[in-house]
């Protein structure tokens, strides 16, 4: 098959519609079909309703509402023949073999030969699915198992059968990788594949052990979460998220499919408390709450949790476990005396053993099993990485001591680790006992790999500069949360000099969860507390100068963000020549939230962008009004696509769907700008002056009267309005960049020592949210 230009998804449930939405996110048209319910007024109602619902739910399935236009909502009674238009058909119907096979026969009658057909089944083996189907159907068939929600979960498990055409499977995998941004893990045709088989085993053990040892749910989640690099929802919070009803359902089908000797059976146990909760409609966050709920009785919101022994709700209390806080690393947690250590081991011991048992069974590749848990369950470390951290011998010995069977790969470890670095390359142990290089998919460039093999060109406590080949350097933020401080600016200054001398282009990129959440507020608060106003102003000026130097540097600069790019993290992108953003990038100038104005050139650059936007009406006010609307409300774009609407990104900036391909794409973009590169010319702005500022202030006051803006919001809005309208400018004046930067600095300094702004700093540092004052 030539490529995938159009897709069909059959089944408009939560998964099917989510998959369709994500295909639309990739800019690919998709047909979404479901059955026609008896007596339905709208024969496409199931699919149309699903799209309408997705446009309302958060987190959003679509990266921009306009993507929904690419989803055509149809039904399988009237429109099945339209499957002839598509290159890939994804079946996402009920998990019943007969239903799926009946559908396949209807699909096969209308599809073009060579059209890929895949099932999103989570438990039914491929062998069973294609039994009795024509030979040609088997050649075009595979399993593509997405995780929920499909936009956000990066894992895609792919299972092919002996008859599957490898070229067809490669086309689907390549599309899923580059266009949908998925990391592909190839699995053997075994029940539950990798992530759910191990994940459900872990959940089952964690619930049973909590019940046996009398561990309250809050404590179980505290132990299972952060210490093991697992999201802080732990186990019970995770089950609430995915839905309690899913657990017995998946467990049942896994038990039916797995052989009797599989350890899954031994760990299985009836859980009357779950049955009872589901019966009461407590199916988790989608229902009336699950193990946790918000009780709104009496007009108050109280967080409650289920007592596993009685099944009744009680007020929830945060687990108070000082020993757990003290414990450094997973092994220390396993060694804790008493209930905490015992619980940690009762869950993780068997889980790690079960993972080891999956080698050769679900996959031959240890790294693939780790990848599946990292991307399918958001574990920071996969099970084998965890064993390396804990110590293979420790795990094997303790398992043996407790009477568990120690899987051969763990028993035969003999002091080795599952991973090692050899000659600057990361290697993984194979089932045969040798190591092999971990090979990235073609075209993937990871900074973490580069860092294993080389020393930085420049480095200090908050940033580093790397050579990423072909004459391109990469500037990396390295501080906690990739916060920006004086050291980042200092190293960026040095980097500009070095790149000017020895390199062709610069990419600003890192592999943190967030590109950068902005300036280090803790440092700013500290400086304010000791009244170091001069130092604060110097840092503001240093940031302005450094970003201006970056903008006028004689080489192209490409910003490559992923995750949050806020405040100063947004401003460095605004000063770049181009941006190559991961699709899941959340950009915003959020300074107003903490009682400040953007002062590293953010106001200046946003004004320039809106003023030169051909779609804007003429005159001095539209650009300031637009920037004011976005910045005074600290609006953060909910995707790279949405960032284009807000002009945080330009129409020409690139979007990369696969996180692992971001650096390579950014580097290519930088190299494409090298020939004939000329730095951008400074802009001049025509702004309305005080009358424009008044109009903006009046708008903010309207929000205050409605109770939306607070008293200090008005102070901040006033200071922002002054910057955006050019201070005392007359509309006949032309202001240069320095004039706007001076206004940014002045407004920033006027705000930074107000008590209300400092109170916002404090609350952000303590609680992560600014106080409303």
């Amino acid at each position, binding site marked *: 098959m030539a490529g995938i230009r159009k897709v069909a998804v059959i089944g408009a449930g939560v998964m099917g519609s989510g998959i369709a939405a994500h295909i639309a996110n990739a800019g690919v048209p998709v047909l979404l079909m479901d059955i026609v319910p008896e007596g339905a007024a709208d024969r496409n109602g199931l699919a149309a309703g699903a799209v309408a619902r997705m446009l309302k739910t958060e987190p959003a399935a679509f990266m921009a509402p306009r993507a929904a236009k690419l989803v055509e909502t149809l039904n399988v009674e009237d429109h099945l023949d339209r499957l002839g238009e598509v290159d890939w058909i994804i079946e996402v119907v009920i998990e019943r073999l007969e239903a799926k096979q009946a559908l396949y026969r209807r699909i096969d009658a209308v599809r073009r030969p060579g059209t890929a057909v895949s099932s999103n089944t989570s438990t039914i083996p491929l062998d069973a699915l294609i039994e009795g189907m024509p030979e040609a159907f088997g050649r075009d068939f595979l399993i593509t198992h997405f995780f929920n929600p499909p936009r956000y979960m990066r894992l895609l498990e792919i299972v092919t059968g002996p008859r599957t055409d490898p070229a067809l499977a490669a086309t689907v995998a390549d599309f899923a990788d580059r266009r949908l941004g998925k990391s592909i893990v190839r699995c053997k045709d075994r029940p539950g594949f990798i992530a759910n088989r191990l994940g459900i085993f872990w959940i089952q053990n964690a619930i049973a052990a909590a019940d046996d040892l009398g561990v309250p749910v809050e404590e179980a989640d505290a132990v299972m979460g952060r210490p093991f690099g697992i999201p802080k929802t732990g186990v019970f919070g995770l089950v609430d998220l995915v839905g309690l009803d899913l657990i017995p359902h998946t467990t049942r089908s896994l038990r039916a499919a797995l052989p009797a000797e599989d350890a899954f059976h031994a760990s299985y146990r009836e859980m009357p408390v779950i049955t009872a909760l589901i019966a009461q409609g407590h199916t988790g966050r989608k229902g009336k709450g699950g193990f946790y709920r918000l009780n709104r009785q009496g007009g108050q919101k109280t967080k409650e949790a289920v007592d596993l022994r009685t099944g009744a709700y009680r007020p929830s209390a945060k687990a108070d476990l000082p020993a757990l806080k003290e414990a450094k690393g997973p092994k220390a947690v396993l060694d804790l005396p008493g209930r905490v250590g015992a619980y940690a081991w009762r869950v993780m011991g068997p889980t790690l053993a079960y993972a080891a048992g999956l080698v050769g069974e679900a996959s031959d590749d240890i790294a693939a099993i780790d990848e599946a848990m990292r991307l399918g369950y958001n574990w920071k470390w996969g099970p084998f990485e965890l064993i390396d951290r804990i110590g293979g011998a420790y795990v094997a010995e303790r398992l043996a001591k407790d009477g568990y069977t120690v899987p051969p790969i763990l028993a035969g470890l003999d002091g080795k680790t599952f991973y090692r670095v050899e000659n600057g390359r990361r290697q993984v142990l194979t089932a045969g006992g040798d190591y092999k290089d971990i090979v990235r998919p073609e075209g993937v460039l990871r900074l973490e790999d580069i860092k294993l093999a080389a020393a930085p060109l420049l480095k200090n406590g908050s940033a580093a500069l790397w050579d990423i080949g072909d004459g391109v350097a990469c500037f990396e933020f390295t501080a906690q949360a990739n916060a920006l401080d004086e050291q980042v600016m200092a190293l960026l200054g040095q980097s500009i000099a070095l790149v000017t001398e020895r390199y062709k282009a610069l990419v600003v990129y890192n592999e943190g969860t967030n590109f950068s959440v902005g300036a280090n507020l803790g440092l700013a608060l500290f400086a304010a507390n000791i009244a170091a106003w001069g130092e604060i102003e110097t840092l503001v000026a240093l940031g302005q100068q450094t970003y201006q130097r970056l903008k006028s540097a004689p080489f192209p600069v490409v910003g490559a963000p992923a995750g949050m790019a806020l405040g100063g993290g947004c401003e460095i992108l605004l000063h770049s020549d181009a941006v190559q953003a991961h699709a899941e990038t959340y950009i915003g100038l959020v300074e107003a939230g903490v009682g400040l104005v953007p002062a590293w050139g953010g106001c200046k650059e946003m004004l320039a962008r809106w003023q030169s936007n051909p779609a804007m009406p003429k005159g001095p006010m539209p650009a300031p009004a637009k920037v004011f609307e976005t910045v005074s409300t600290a609006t953060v774009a909910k995707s790279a696509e949405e960032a284009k609407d807000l002009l945080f990104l330009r129409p020409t900036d690139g979007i990369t769907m696969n996180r692992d391909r971001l650096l390579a794409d950014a580097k290519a973009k930088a190299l494409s700008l090298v020939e004939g590169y000329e730095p951008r010319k400074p802009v001049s702005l025509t702004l309305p002056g005080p009358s424009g500022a008044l109009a903006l202030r009046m708008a903010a006051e309207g929000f205050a*009267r409605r109770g939306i803006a607070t008293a200090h919001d008005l102070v901040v809005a006033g200071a922002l309005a002054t910057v955006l309208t050019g201070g005392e400018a007359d509309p006949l004046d032309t202001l240069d960049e320095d004039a706007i930067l001076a206004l940014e600095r002045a407004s920033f300094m006027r705000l930074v020592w107000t008590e209300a702004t400092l109170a916002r700093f404090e609350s952000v540092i303590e609680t992560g949210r600014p106080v409303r004052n």
Partner: protein
Amino acid sequence: MTDVVIAGYARSPFTPAKKGALARVRPDDLAAQVVRRLVAQAGIPSKDIEDLIVGCAFPEGEQGFNVARLIGMLAGLDLGVGGVTVNRFCGSSMQSVHIAAGQIMLGAGEAFLCAGVESMSRVPMMGFNPMPNPALHETRPGAYIGMGDTAENVARRWRITRADQEAFAVASHRKAAKAQAEGRLAAEIVPITAKGGPVEADGCIRADASAEGLAALKPAFQQDGTVTAGTSSPLTDGASAVLVCSDAYARRAGLTPLARIAAVGLSGCEPEIMGIGPVAASKKAMARAGITADALGVVELNEAFAAQAIACIRDLGLDEKTVNIDGGAIALGHPLGATGARIVGKAAALLAREGGRYALATQCIGGGQGIATLLERV
């Protein structure tokens, strides 16, 4: 003195801004379709018309330039017909009528097209470049006060409860929905050609409006206020036009006049309570005609907000049964520049339909003014 009559009335459907069926229609095209139809209905040669006087509250963008002249060309009027754009905010197209009446009495023409237009989808309230004078704002902040805040002021000062406002809004929707269902609005509506097909019906009316539904809305302008989106006129797109001419011309051209203009009135007031503007303006007009409110058989009182409409009804001592018989702006919509010509035309048409001797059309104006037109049966 020369008698001045309203000899024809037409309007476009009124539809909600941004999401309504007229959102993507240029305002100049919209008004031109209404003007063209009104002239065709009257069956008069357009060269008889002295001037096309178009009211518009934010005359910029697509309703900018001298939009009246451009509407005349788009409508295919004789090039000898003039074109002037008038701005008195919400009173703009009622002012068009007053200008025409004055010109006719002056002997400066016999027939005038008085139109109004506003695309609140395509030109925002306040315009694209609001630049208020800081010095004036300092000495008289009310000069630029938001309309919703004036409604809150009126509600407080005249003690209009939220429940009263909501009952008024529900009644407006009921009356409009009934008029629509009984086909009483269709006669005045010119179907508009839009990209998505013809637009024939008003889009703001909610037949299912209920007191319970309105009671659930949050205050729209002030946290502790009583005015909601449901008791305010919606942002609307629309155009309207009336044919104003001398009685002698009407007879000569074979037109049937709907009503005679008996008097007009205009008055300024505190900008902070602009909604009460109709009271003084209407009193002036009635005094000039030598009548009192009990002589009014028909009243078209623009419902910018339920609060100000109720306050005006009380202060003028109006009989509620005579007010906005086919519904008001809360239900129909209020495309600022187009409302004046609509309510003058509607009052004239209702006078012809319902009987009675006098009809009043009046409205409040942002910045603190009221304007009124008193009509008499012919």
